[in-house]
Every structure is written in structure tokens, then in C-alpha cells.
């Protein structure tokens, strides 16, 4: 059996929804120093005629390994056009299931990362629109922020280094 499923390779080879959204309704970042993965996810949220919040568009940028890129791509295809409340319910297990093959245990955090970026983007949207933040989202945000702060300490200087070497 190959290391990665067809589904992973498909998304890795041709990732969907790569890029940025100018003036996004919500923007979320997630990163994990252990793997070196960093990703940003952008959401454009609009209301439909029924007044439901719909994810009209989603884009992402990922610096990361095969699974990280494939997962973010897959996740964006799962939420695009969906109701925001349904997107909120997505768990990392749903992503793993969709990949069609059990991941090596050390790769599971990469899946978590994509979901984290999505939740952070939704959190950002709630915050910007001064909406009441659901408890789960708030808890998740605090966990992600805390991890990020710890990682930030170890990851200091990355952007400065990037700028220097690519100038």
C-alpha cells in the first residue's frame, strides 16, 4: 500500500482553492512548529435569501507537508457553498474519514491543523461582526491561541529570515 491514499495525492497534486481573498469575512491562521506547517484560511460569508449564513468562497495558503496541503484543500471543498453552522460542526475525524485511508499516527496533527485554521477564520468572522461566540468555538480559540503563543517563542524570526533570504 502506498503511504498516501489516492484522495490525498489528488488534492496534493492539484490543490483546490489556493490563494487569498481580499477583504475576507474571516481569516484564520494555524501553525505547528513540530511539523513546520503553517496555514492561512480565508472565508467570504454572505447571507442567502432565507437569511442563513453561507460560505460563498474559501481560499487557503499552506506551507507544509503532503497531508497538510491535501487536508486544507479537501476541507475547503467540504465547506464551500455550505451553511456556516454546518462548517462549524466539522471535526478532524470527518476529514480523516474522507481521506479514505488511516493516516500514520504522527500525521494526524496535520489534519487538526486545517480544521483549526477554519475555526479560527469563523471565530474572526464572529468577532468582526460582534456576534455571540458559541462556547465550543471560544474554547477552541483559546486552545489554539495558547499553543500558538508557545510556538511563537520557538519560531521567532521566521518571517524576518524569509524576508532576508528571499529579497
Amino acid at each position, binding site marked *: 500500500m502506498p503511504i*498516501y491514499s489516492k484522495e490525498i*495525492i489528488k488534492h*496534493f*497534486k492539484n*490543490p483546490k482553492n*489556493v490563494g487569498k481573498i481580499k477583504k475576507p469575512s474571516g481569516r484564520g491562521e494555524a501553525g505547528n*512548529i*513540530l*511539523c*513546520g*506547517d*503553517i*496555514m*492561512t484560511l480565508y472565508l467570504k460569508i454572505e447571507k442567502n435569501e432565507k437569511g442563513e449564513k453561507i460560505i460563498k468562497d474559501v481560499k487557503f*495558503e*499552506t*506551507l*507544509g*507537508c*503532503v497531508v*497538510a*496541503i491535501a487536508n486544507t484543500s479537501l476541507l475547503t471543498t467540504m465547506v464551500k457553498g455550505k451553511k456556516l453552522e454546518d462548517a462549524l460542526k466539522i471535526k478532524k475525524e470527518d476529514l480523516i474519514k474522507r481521506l479514505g485511508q488511516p493516516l*500514520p499516527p*504522527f500525521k494526524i496533527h496535520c489534519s487538526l491543523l486545517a480544521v483549526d485554521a477554519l475555526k479560527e477564520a469563523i471565530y474572526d468572522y464572529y468577532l468582526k461582526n460582534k456576534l455571540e461566540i458559541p462556547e465550543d468555538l471560544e474554547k477552541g480559540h483559546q486552545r489554539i491561541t495558547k499553543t500558538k503563543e508557545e510556538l511563537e517563542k*520557538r*519560531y521567532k*524570526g*521566521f*518571517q524576518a*529570515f*524569509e524576508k532576508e*533570504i*528571499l529579497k
Partner: protein
Amino acid sequence: MKKIYLDYAATTPIDPRVTKAMLPYFSEKFGNTMSLHSFGQEAKQALEESREVVANLMKAKLNEIIFTSSATESNNLALKGIAFANENKGRHIVISSIEHPCIIESAKWLEKQGFEITRLKVDKYGLVEPDDVRKAIRKETILVSIMHANNEIGTIEPIEEIGKICKEKGVYFHTDAAQSFGKILIDVNKMNIDLLTTSSHKMYGPKGAAALFIREGTKIEPLIHGGGHESGLRSSTVNVAAIVGFAEAARICQREMKIESERLTKLRNKLIKGVLQKIKGSHLNGPPASAMPKALRAGPPASAMPKALRAGPPASAMPKALRAGPPASAMPKALRAGPPASAMPKALRAGPPASAMPKALRAGHPKKRLPNNINFSFPGIEGESLVMQLDLLGIAASTGSACSSEKLEPSHVLLAIGLKPEQAHGSLRLSLGRWTKEKDVDYVLEVLPKVVKRLREISPFKR
């Protein structure tokens, strides 16, 4: 799809000439080397002839070569065997911080048994400073183990100087030459080496065969006890077929070393130069590219070899993936029969003259890199993704990225030469070998910049 294998530092295909030499030892010459009858004698004779060939390639004596199953086993035997046999003298061992995991882990295990380990730092090219070795040696030091050439960044360590220091201080000196044996010249006497590890599958021989050179008179304990094979230092029924293959591989390397390393150095330099020019922000890890190692230039001229030995393998017998391109025998005649490199016309000498090289390549230590090793960092992307993208395009390479390891830690070698984790994450090792052709290098130069560009487009850190 065309497939290009550029991971020769991980393992090599068996040379068809080696396979041919091995075949009889699986069937009609299957004897146990310990048996008295003719079958046993035949196997024993093949074993001893193989020992002579391997000994010759490092200028050792016949009785100083112990066959093992792998370089990992040889390294374990060297470290633990010396430690156990000499602990009454002292319990201190010196290694470098960029050794192969089998040295690092053996040392760590010995530490748990009460031995003390000093891990020497390396400079930004991965070089151990011989003076640091001198300073690290104490009254209780029993062993210094510094690798000959690094498997990730290709650094060739100053082992001759280190050997000299160890000899002066009366401390055993072991070197892991798994990556260098058969590629660059080794002389265990000139280099004052007491123990030396080699591996068959890194030099076009089969997996399952390796050797440990142990200088005559060295105090060492076996790790595997039993029927007393290999002078009592490594009991186990001898894997004659694999060892015969190992010896044939060594014979071929000895004959072709000079020509091959010149050829590879040239290809390596072309690839390095091309990538640094074409890919923004790319960085070469390890020593700068330059002419071939000094040690090689002293080798015998190819013209001194019997003609029969010079011919390459027939293309049809080669592994399919590697068959593309001409066999070694199709090399320009001028290169095959040439005088020693120092006397060669400039145009034939490996690589461009230093003055024509990009500045980044000229700085630092010249001649300290294995002829076949290349290691880059591409900031803004991650190595596993890069390796997988290349694989989808038919190029086999490797990376020191954490994502590719189950430990989720970036390469200890890249961190030891001062790379930040994020730089190590974006690393790519390309290791060339016997079937690498110039058109393969050209293909990599065409594909790699596109792949890096694509991954940077996906990355939030693109420029």
C-alpha cells in the same frame, strides 16, 4: 514515466556484475563456511577471497576485516565492543554531533550503562575541528568515533588529522565510512584508523553485508556469541553470497573510483550551480562544491588498469529504471584512459574552475564534499511536499524535514550546522550515482525550479 533515482546515499541498486558474481553462491556453492567437506571449503575460500578484496580497498590486512550484516551492526560492535573491552582503562567516548543515528543511539545507550559521552560540535559546513578532538581527550578516554563522510550533507571530515591525534594520545579511533568507502580513497594506516565501518549496499553491492576493520591488537569484545565465526567477533552462519557480492562491488569501485568520482563531481557541480542560479533563495547545505577531494587525485591513472576491467556493465543487464543513458563504458575514451587528474587538460578536470563559480560556492572549505552529495534548503516550502512532488514527476530524492520522520524532528545534522528548524524543513538531498547521466541533471534543473515555484505559490510565504 521516466524515473530518475537520485537517492544513492540511501541505497544503491546492485550492479549487474555483482549479481552475476553472487548467483552461484545461492545454489551450487551454498556451503557453510564452517563445514569440513568440499562444499564448506568452497564457501570458506570465497569468504577469504572476499575478505582480501575488501581489505585491499582500505590497505588493511586480511585478518583485520570482520564481516557483519550492516553498517549499523559494525558501528554497534565498534562502540559497544570497545567500550566493554576497555572499561578498566576508562569510560569516556568522544563522538561528533552529526554521526549516523546508529552511532548516536549506541552512544546514548552506553551513557545509560555509565559511560560518559562527549559530542563534538561542527562548523557551518559540518566539519569537526581536530583541535576540539585533542581537547576532548582525557585520561579516561577510550575511543574517538568520527564519521569519514556525512550521509546528509556530504562533508568529508579531517580524519587523517584526527587519527594522528588519537594515535599520539593512545586512544582508539573509529570512523564510520559507510558513505565514503568505495567513493574516495581510504588508507587505514596513513589515516591512523583503528576501526572502520563500511557497507555493501551503499556501493552497488547487496544489502545484508558490511564489514568492520579492526586493527590487529585492538581490544574488543564481541556482541554476538555462538560458533565463533569471524575470529570469534561475530558468530552467525556466514552470508557468503552477500559477502561475495560486497567484494565484487568493492573490486568494481576500486577500478572505477577515479573516473567515476570525476564524472560525478562534474555532474554534481553542474546541478548545484544550476539550482543556485535558477531558484531564488536556495542555499547549499554542507561544504561548497569544488574540485574532487584531494585524496582522489593521488589515485592510480585509469590507463594502468587492465582493459578488461574497464568495461562497464551491458545496458541490458541494468535495472530498468536506471537503464536510460549510456553505460559507463560509453564514456568518452579520453576520460577512461586519462592520466591522473592533476595532469589532465583543464577542460577535463572536474567542475568549473573556482574563479568561474558563483561566489557562494567559492567560500569556505574546498574539496571537503563527497563527489555525489548535494543538499539544498529552499525557504518557504516543506521538504516532504517537495520530495513527493518530485516523485510524481519521476525524481527520487530525500529530505531532512521533520514531516518525513516519525519523530517529527528536523535532521540533527542540519540543526548541528546551524540551520533553523524552518530551514531544515525545506531541505532536499540529491545523491548521484553510477547510473546518473547528464541528461538526468538537466531534467532536474528543468523540473525542480517549477516545483519549488508551485509550492511557494501554495505557501503563505511566497514572494
